[in-house]
């Protein structure tokens, strides 16, 4: 199970980096989203993989580590807000530029 998870995380990061390096805002956003999914999975796995175990200390030895689950929850919430922000930003830039290229030449030297 650990090998499969590692493979999935690696694949997600690989696809994310490829998309991030493209010069269109939409692909860049998708790339960021994929990498943040991979990050969340990695963070979750930091508490060791366990199935069918309650994340509660004190119920007896077989329990899942609750802390990474709390960390992932925080990271998901922050990541969601960031994604929403970047999507709105990209839409606004698309409307103003008339193009969604990241390397477009904006006006130089505004005040």
């Amino acid at each position: 199970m650990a090998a499969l998870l590692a493979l999935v995380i690696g694949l997600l990061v690989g696809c994310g980096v490829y998309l991030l390096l493209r010069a269109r805002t939409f692909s860049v956003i998708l790339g960021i989203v994929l990498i943040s999914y991979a990050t969340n999975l990695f963070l979750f796995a930091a508490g060791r993989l366990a199935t069918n175990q309650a994340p509660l200390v004190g119920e007896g030895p077989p329990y899942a580590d609750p802390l990474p689950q709390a960390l992932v929850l925080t990271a998901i919430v922050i990541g969601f807000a960031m994604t929403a922000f970047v999507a709105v930003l990209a839409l606004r830039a698309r409307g103003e530029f008339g193009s969604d290229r990241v390397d477009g030449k904006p006006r130089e030297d505004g005040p």
Partner: protein
Amino acid sequence: MSALVISPVLVPLATAVLTTLAGRRPGIQQVLSFAGIAAFLACALALVALAAADRPAEAAFGGWAAPFGIQFLIDRTGAVLVLVTALMGTASLVFLASDADTGPRHPLLLPLVHGLLAGVGGAFATADLFNLYVWFEVMLICALGLFAIGGRLDQLDATFKYLALNLLGTLLLLIAVGAVYAVTGHLNFGALAQASEALPPGLATLVLAALILAFLIKAGAFPLFAWLPASYHTLPAPVLALFAGLLTKVGVYAVLRTLGDVFAPAPELLYEALGWIAAATMLVGVLGAAYHWDMRRILAFHIVSQIGYILLGVALMSEAGNAATLFYTVHHIVVKANLFLIAAILWRLAGSYDLRQIGGLYALRPWLGVLFLIPALSLVGVPPLSGFWAKLLILEEAIAQGRVAWTVVALLVSVLTLYSMVKIWMEGFWSPHPDPQWRLPRARLWPAYAATLGLAAVTLWIGLNPQPLLTYAQAAASTLGAH
């Protein structure tokens, strides 16, 4: 003292909320903003006093004791940086009250500035690795807001570049935090310091390398600084000074905290690599600055260059090196922010940030020329200004350790820094203005002069009387890595 320890977060955050509520009444908003920053400054002074008396403010939240609950701990290092943060906030808010910045005032500008200060304060106060990540995110979202509220095309473009590269750094930081937790089972600094001693060196190198790399992206070190000169020049001047002074320095502080304190002594390979990265950062930054003619771009590249010096102090892996790092950071924040503010005054008076299109200010405003020279020569490291002592401390330690190559690079970069500063001075003040029709505009600039004069006074005070700050920095360094 649990009330005071959360003040670096609580005071700016409360001010941000209050100024948001007063968004429709600019007068009240301004008053609230000044009251908030004054309270922040008072709390920061109290925190320094506590830390200097060896009673660092400390608290753990959520009803859990320290290694499990999130802990705030403000030692000497954190306290002095919180104080400088409050000082920078004051300077840029005072500067905002002048009409040196002519753009329309967005009602969310002041709340976002205070939100940014809360993020910076939280990062300096926390003693928990995941909590540090959260404060980086608070800073990032407020910084993005400040980039985007102008709404100009170049600003939107800069926001996107800043966001894409910084978000990548944040995600790497999150991965590294997860890895640290996976191998040690802790996130609290004190507990990590204990647990890291049992780590096998290979694993420690790998995990810490990821963590340091994430912090270096945030600090703008070579080769990961592309986001900084690509975006900073689109900001309004007072906000730019705040960014230039504080944001990259939080990344540097995080490197100091991890390599110099929590995980010290870390595997030697990391310090060696950091030293070469620092040398490359210095050199590339200063060469980038030499190429440009826009004052904001020149100064932005000098941020990168100076980050190299500060990182060099950490790479020296000694108590003296850490003390020099802290001294340099405090000096650099004040000087860098001041240079950006003075550049904004130049822009207001002469009409452009492009050095080829301005000039002739020395004949009309000779004292402004002198004012500019104080932070400029301090940045270069001319005695008796603060930068001289900062560089002396770092180079003295580098020579004592026999690091000839790093010392030579640092000295060479000083000379090139002088070239950039002389370029600004010659083109902006000495050479005649290219437009013969140009006249000095009328503007209410006294708050801008008050802010820049105040910061220049701090530079002069550190320069003429370096012993108090030096003693403080040495005392701070003696507690770093002691566990």
